[in-house]
């Protein structure tokens, strides 16, 4: 067996149509000026725009029809997220979709029937997983006691301030479990918003202590661990898709500048010192995109198999390194202009840092890939 393994890459008419629609939507509805207008807002996105996206069905695109979704799977969410990444459009779509996937993959029918339709119809949800900055640390210390009361803090919870629902990983009776918390259950001051390097994104530390969770909002059993693992991988894939869109936009920004800016009497794009690294950004972005759609090909509703795991990890490792490089070079190649807040290069370099740190950085995934591929 070749270490390169599965190399499937399929893209349906449906996906192609969605990619096209989503790119057009983002281009029309969220030009970069609108993105900038959201940088200082509390939520980071335009609620009316979110409603439009919901009405297009995107909030439930990956959910089965039986729970109010479109039943098209993660594979169709990927092009939408890529298109949003390209437009640098911040919304709760990724966190909401991941929370829904976690419920879908671990909850019982009653829970899914009760909770998923709301998400599909646009009530944002989110995941609360991390307790420190270490994605490689899967230990959970936030507890759900026998009386159903939570104690502990989750960090960097994405889109926490707008989420109506939190799916929280907890320690319960010595086992890993999930607790579903409604935002109205949170005590005042439970949330401390993070100041993020990527101003298009929002997250918060959330103190769940004292929240009483109804029995029907607790998810336990053998499915929880695998579901969590899968959702972390899907998170890696979606962030990779988004980052790949951002890399592509960043590349466009660089190319545009290199074609118009002159120095020493020549268009700067004619200098190989700028030209060749820009080619590197192109080829690395090409690689990222190939991994992302390879991943989209392999992830389905079932538990992710090893090929899918490899694909998600590779997508994340490649996409985030690429954006890190693209963002850094975008600032440099714009010269003095690149050093200003006004220049869009800042959006990409900031997004790069954020993306790298979601669901484990490149090295985190390469370490796990080594075990999957070499042992």
């Amino acid at each position, binding site marked *: 067996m*070749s*270490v*390169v*393994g599965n*190399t*499937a*890459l*399929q*893209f349906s008419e449906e*996906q*192609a149509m969605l*990619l*096209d629609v989503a790119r057009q939507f983002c281009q029309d509805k969220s030009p970069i000026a609108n993105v900038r207008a959201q940088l200082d807002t509390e939520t980071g996105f335009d609620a009316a725009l979110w409603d439009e996206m919901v009405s297009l069905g995107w909030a439930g695109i990956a959910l089965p029809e039986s729970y109010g979704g479109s039943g098209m799977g993660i594979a169709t969410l990927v092009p939408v997220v890529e298109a949003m990444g390209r437009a640098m459009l911040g919304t709760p779509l990724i966190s909401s979709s991941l929370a829904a996937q976690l419920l879908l993959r671990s909850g019982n029918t009653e829970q899914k029937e009760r909770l998923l339709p709301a998400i599909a119809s646009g009530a944002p949800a989110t995941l609360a997983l991390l307790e420190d900055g270490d994605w490689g640390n899967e230990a959970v210390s936030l507890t759900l006691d026998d009386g159903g009361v939570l104690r502990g803090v989750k960090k960097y919870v994405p889109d926490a301030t707008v989420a109506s629902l939190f799916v929280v990983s907890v320690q319960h009776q010595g086992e890993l479990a999930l607790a579903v918390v409604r935002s109205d259950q949170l005590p005042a001051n439970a949330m401390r918003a993070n100041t993020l390097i990527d101003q298009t994104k929002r997250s918060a530390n959330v103190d769940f202590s004292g929240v009483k969770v109804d029995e029907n909002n607790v998810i336990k059993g053998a499915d929880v661990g695998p579901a969590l693992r899968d959702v972390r991988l899907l998170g890696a894939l979606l962030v990779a898709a988004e980052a790949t869109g951002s890399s*592509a936009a960043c590349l466009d920004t660089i*190319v545009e500048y*290199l*074609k118009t800016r002159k120095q020493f009497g*020549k*268009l700067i*794009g*004619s200098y*190989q010192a700028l*030209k*060749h690294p*820009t*080619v590197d950004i*192109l*080829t690395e972005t*090409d*690689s990222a*995109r*190939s*991994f992302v*759609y*390879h991943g989209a090909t392999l992830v389905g509703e079932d538990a992710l198999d090893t090929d899918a795991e490899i694909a998600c990890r*590779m997508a994340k*490792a*490649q996409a985030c390194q690429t954006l890190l490089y693209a963002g850094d070079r975008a600032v440099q190649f714009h010269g003095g202009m690149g050093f200003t807040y006004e220049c869009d290069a800042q959006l990409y370099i900031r997004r790069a840092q954020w993306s790298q740190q979601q669901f484990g950085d490149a*090295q985190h995934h*390469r*370490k796990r*890939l*080594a075990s999957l*591929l*070499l042992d």
Partner: protein
Amino acid sequence: MSTSEKELAEFRAEVGAWMKDNNPPDPGFLLPQTFMEVGDERQLEFLREWQHKVWAAGYLGMAWPKEYGGRGVDPVFQSIADQEMRRNRVPICFNVIGLGWAGPLINDIGTEQEKARYLKGILTAEDVWCQGFSEPEHGSDLGNAQTRAVRDGDEYIINGQKIWTTMGNFAKYMILLARTNPDAPRKYDGLSFFLSPMQLPGIETRPIRKITGEFGFTETFFTDARIPAGCLMGEEGQGWKIAMQTLQYERGAASGAAGGQAMVRVTVDDMIDQLEGVNRDGEPVLKDPVVRDQLVQAIMEEKAMILGDRRARVAALTTDYPGSLQLSNKLRLTELTRRMRQLAINLQGAEGALYVGDDEARQGGFWQRAYFNSFSATIGGGTSQVQANIVAEHILGLPK
């Protein structure tokens, strides 16, 4: 001609089985991985025999007309045969300039006489072909070729010098780019294209010793060499156009090439396999975390290339910079190959300092030689630096 899936699958099984059964045993010397590495008569004879055998079995030139030694079937069969050759890691079909460049060209635009004269010998490996495009002073700049061809009655008199002629010392024919009109307003319009014999007075070859220590190329000197006027292909002044057309066939049987495996693919699997038994700090080198991180990166690079081929076929996923995956392919693959082979040696530990000829050299020094040979691809056919310019200008639209 439409062909059923079933028929194709049966053919694949048939050719696969044949390759497996007929893959020759290790001859006791390192075989060339590419046709550019044929360094001595021993290798040549081995490969000539192998190519003839593949042809005789019906797995070479399958899409070429029957009357010229082909089988006249759909090119898809040749593509399958080529895949099975690669998969079974059989030796290369070494007569690459004939099979992949001159042959399809003659098939496309040659006269009946040319087809009858040249095609079959290409397939049987009886007639080795070489290519005379590059010149010493104009490495990456073909349009500037200065070798002169002057019409004199029924002959052309050739003067000049070609370089990097692969198998120039073994070849019977050369596809030759020469200047018939030095005064043409556009330098490209002064060039003509010839199917030139090599065994004539006034044509001499001097072997070039490669960095590997072997001989793989020649310089070819033309000194008042007289070739028949009939060797001119097309008309005077069409040389550049024909040369550019020739370069199109490289992409394989679907474009008209005879097929056959031109190069033994060396993969990251091979690179990892060769580390079997290599230790670092007393432990298998594959257990070293830093090495593992490097290997995963190499695997990812190779996999990204393969996935890129797949994605290139999905129109909706190639709208950004169309052609980017295809046009950057040479740059990426050749650079990956070079880096991977360098890494392969590095990871061997002290054994990495051994070379071909040492009994204890890992896999006979394969990786050391392969690393050196990899530069033929990062330099030949446009250096990586020139390739990066091409991608920047043609795909990204950056200024020259």
